[in-house]
C-alpha cells in the first residue's frame, strides 16, 4: 500500500484519485477520511490544515461511511471547505451549524442565452458597467427590491417562489432550482428578530468576497448528448451568479452555534473543535436549527432569483429585447453550503441521513426523484465556478456519486493562497491589466476584494474538475471562460 505522510497525517492511496485517512490516525474518529485528489492537487492540499479538519469531522456522532473531501478542499473553520459528512438520524446522527457555515445556502445559478460571442464581444465593457450599476454588489449594499416585515417572513417560507409571485421570474425558474427554490419545514419563528433585521435591506444583493456575477462564453463541449439536450453550443453566452443568504444567514448560524456549544455537554458529544458543535438531528436543538437554516436557505434562493431578475432586466434594456427572446433561461441553481435530510443507501439499507455539504455541491445522478423531468436522463446539472481569470464548468451528476459521496461533488476551484498573501502578490492595476489582456472586463466595489480574489489565489479549476470527472463522481458537460465579471 502506497502511503504519504504530512507531518503526522498518513494518507493511504486507494487509486489515482482517492486517498484515505485511516481511523487509526486519531482516536475518536468514527469513520475514515476519504479525499478526492490527484498527486498534483495533494501538494496544494498539504499546504494547510484541511486534512486535519477532515479527520476532525470524522468525530461527529452518527457519521456514516467516510468524512469526505472534494478536490477543491482547503482550510476552513471546523469543517474543511470542500467537506461532505452524512450522519444517520436513527443512530443519533447530528447536525452541525459549522458544517453548513455562516453563509447558509451560498450557491450558484447558471443561465443560458441565445447570444453568441460575436453579439457581445465589442459591447462587453458597457454591459458589465451596466450590470455593475443595476445589480447591487459589495458589503452593505442595499437592494432595490424593498420588502415589508411581513414579506420578509414570507420570503423565509416561500423562498424563490416569493420572487416569482412578485413577477421576478417564472415557474420554469423554480423547476430549475434545487428544492424548487424553497425547502419545506422552514419555520420563521425559529429565526431571531436580529437575523431578520440583519437581512432586511439585502434581498437582491450580491454581497462581497468571492461572490460574483459573470458573463461567460462556452469554449469547450465535452458531452455532446448533454449539450444537445440543454441546447448549448460553442460560442454561446452564459451567465453565472454566485451569492448566498447575506446577513440573515450569518445571524442564524451565529444564534444557533451559541446554543450548540451547550449541546456538546448536554448530549455528551466529544469533538476536537468547538466550531463542530452539534446536536442530534432528532433533538429539539437539532430540529430548531434545521427549521431556521431552511428559512435562511429559502432567503438565499429568493436572493439569487432576484439577482437573476435584475440581470435579465439589464440585458433587456441593453439589447432591446425581452429576456425570453434573448433565451435567458435558467439551467439550474444549486446550494453548496447546506445540510439536507436525504435518503441514501448505507450497507445496502436505505437510511435517512443528514448530509452536510460545506463548500460542496449536490450532484445527483440520472433518474433521481428529486430532479426535474428534464434532467432525469442526464443527471443533475452541477455548476462549478472557477476564478475570474480561468474557466468555469457545467458538469452532470452520476450514478456512481450516489453511494460514494451521497451524490456530492466539488463546488469550485478552492483557495490556494490566503487573502493577505494574495493582496501582497499583486496590485489591482496589475490584475486588471492582466485580465484585460485576456479580454476579461472586471468591475469590483473594492480594490481589496479584487486583489484578494486574484486568479493566483486559487487552484486551477481545470485540475479540480479533472479529478471529479476521472473519479466518476460527476462528468464534464461543457466549459466556459469569463468575458466580464462584477464583484462585491
Amino acid at each position, binding site marked *: 500500500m502506497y502511503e504519504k505522510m504530512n507531518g503526522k497525517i498518513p494518507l493511504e492511496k486507494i487509486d489515482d484519485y482517492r486517498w484515505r485517512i485511516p481511523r487509526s490516525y486519531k482516536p475518536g474518529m468514527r469513520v475514515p477520511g476519504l479525499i478526492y485528489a490527484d498527486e498534483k492537487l495533494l501538494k496544494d492540499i498539504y*499546504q*494547510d490544515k*484541511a486534512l486535519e479538519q477532515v479527520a476532525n469531522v470524522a468525530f461527529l456522532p452518527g457519521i456514516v461511511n467516510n468524512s469526505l473531501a472534494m478536490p477543491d478542499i*482547503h*482550510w*476552513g*473553520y*471546523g469543517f474543511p*471547505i470542500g467537506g461532505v459528512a452524512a450522519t444517520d438520524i436513527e443512530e443519533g446522527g447530528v447536525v452541525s451549524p*459549522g458544517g453548513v*457555515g*455562516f*453563509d447558509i445556502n451560498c450557491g450558484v445559478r447558471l443561465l443560458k442565452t441565445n447570444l453568441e460571442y460575436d453579439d457581445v464581444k465589442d459591447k462587453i465593457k458597457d454591459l458589465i458597467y451596466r450590470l455593475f450599476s443595476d445589480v447591487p454588489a*459589495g*458589503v*452593505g449594499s442595499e437592494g432595490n427590491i424593498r420588502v415589508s416585515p411581513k414579506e420578509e417572513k414570507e420570503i423565509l417560507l416561500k423562498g424563490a417562489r416569493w420572487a416569482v409571485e412578485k413577477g421576478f421570474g417564472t415557474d420554469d425558474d423554480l423547476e430549475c432550482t434545487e428544492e424548487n427554490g424553497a425547502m419545506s419545514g422552514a419555520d420563521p419563528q425559529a429565526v431571531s428578530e*436580529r437575523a431578520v*433585521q*440583519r437581512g432586511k435591506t439585502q434581498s437582491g444583493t450580491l*454581497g*462581497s*468576497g468571492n461572490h460574483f456575477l459573470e458573463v461567460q462564453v462556452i469554449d469547450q463541449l465535452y458531452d455532446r448528448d448533454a449539450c444537445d439536450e440543454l441546447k448549448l453550443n460553442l460560442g454561446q453566452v452564459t451567465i453565472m451568479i454566485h451569492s448566498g443568504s447575506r*446577513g440573515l444567514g*450569518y*445571524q442564524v*448560524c*451565529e444564534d444557533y*452555534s*451559541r446554543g450548540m*456549544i*451547550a449541546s456538546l455537554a448536554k448530549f455528551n458529544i466529544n469533538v476536537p*473543535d*468547538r*466550531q463542530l*458543535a452539534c446536536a442530534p438531528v432528532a433533538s429539539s436543538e437539532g430540529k430548531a436549527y434545521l427549521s431556521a437554516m431552511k428559512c435562511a436557505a429559502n432567503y438565499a434562493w429568493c436572493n439569487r432569483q432576484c439577482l437573476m431578475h435584475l440581470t435579465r432586466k439589464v440585458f433587456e434594456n441593453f439589447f432591446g429585447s425581452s429576456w425570453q427572446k434573448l433565451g435567458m433561461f435558467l439551467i439550474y441553481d444549486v446550494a453548496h453550503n447546506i445540510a439536507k435530510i436525504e435518503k441514501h443507501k448505507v450497507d445496502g439499507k436505505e437510511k435517512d441521513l443528514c448530509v452536510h455539504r460545506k463548500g460542496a455541491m449536490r450532484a445527483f445522478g440520472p433518474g433521481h426523484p428529486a430532479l426535474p423531468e428534464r434532467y432525469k436522463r442526464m443527471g443533475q446539472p452541477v455548476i462549478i465556478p472557477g476564478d475570474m481569470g480561468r474557466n468555469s464548468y457545467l458538469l452532470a451528476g452520476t450514478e456512481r456519486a450516489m453511494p460514494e459521496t451521497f451524490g456530492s461533488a466539488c463546488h469550485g476551484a478552492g*483557495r*490556494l*493562497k*490566503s*487573502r*493577505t*498573501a494574495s493582496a501582497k502578490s499583486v496590485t489591482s492595476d496589475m490584475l486588471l491589466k492582466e485580465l484585460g489582456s485576456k479580454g476579461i472586463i472586471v468591475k469590483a*466595489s*473594492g480594490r*481589496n*476584494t479584487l486583489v484578494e480574489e486574484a486568479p493566483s489565489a486559487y487552484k486551477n479549476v481545470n485540475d479540480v474538475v479533472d479529478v471529479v470527472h476521472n473519479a466518476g463522481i460527476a462528468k464534464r458537460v461543457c466549459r466556459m471562460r469569463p468575458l466580464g465579471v462584477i464583484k*462585491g
Partner: protein
Amino acid sequence: MKAAYKLIEHTADIGIRVKSFSLAGLFKNAGFAITDLSFQKQTSQYPGKHNIVIRQKAANVEELFINWLNELLSVSAVEALVFEDIKIIQINENFVDAIAIGSDIRNYKFSAEIKAATYHQLKVKKSGLLWQAEVIFDV
C-alpha cells in the same frame, strides 16, 4: 480608536492576534481590529455619535470573547454603525458590560465583510500579566 493587532495567516479567512495587560484592553483591541479590517474612513459628512450598550455573558472567557465580537458585528450591521470607540464599564471572565460608540456607516468605505468570529483555533489566555487572544473570522 487605535487598532493594535497582528494578522494570522489562514487560507480562506482572516485570523488576528491581540494582546493587552487587561481583559478590558484585550476586548477593546479585538473590537477595534474588526473596525480596522472592515472599514476605511472616507468622510465626516454624517455627524453624530451613537452609544450602544453591549452586554454579554458566557460560561468562560473564550465563549465570552466570541459572543462579544459577534455581538459587535451583528449590531454594527443592523444599526448601520461603525464602532470608533469602546468603553468597557465592567468585565470579568464571564461577563462584559460596555458601550460601543458608533459613527454613521456612510462615513466609511467597506474594505472587507467579516461574517462572524469562529471558535476554530480560538485562544484567550493570560500568561503572567499579559492577556493574549487569537481568533479566526469568517470572511
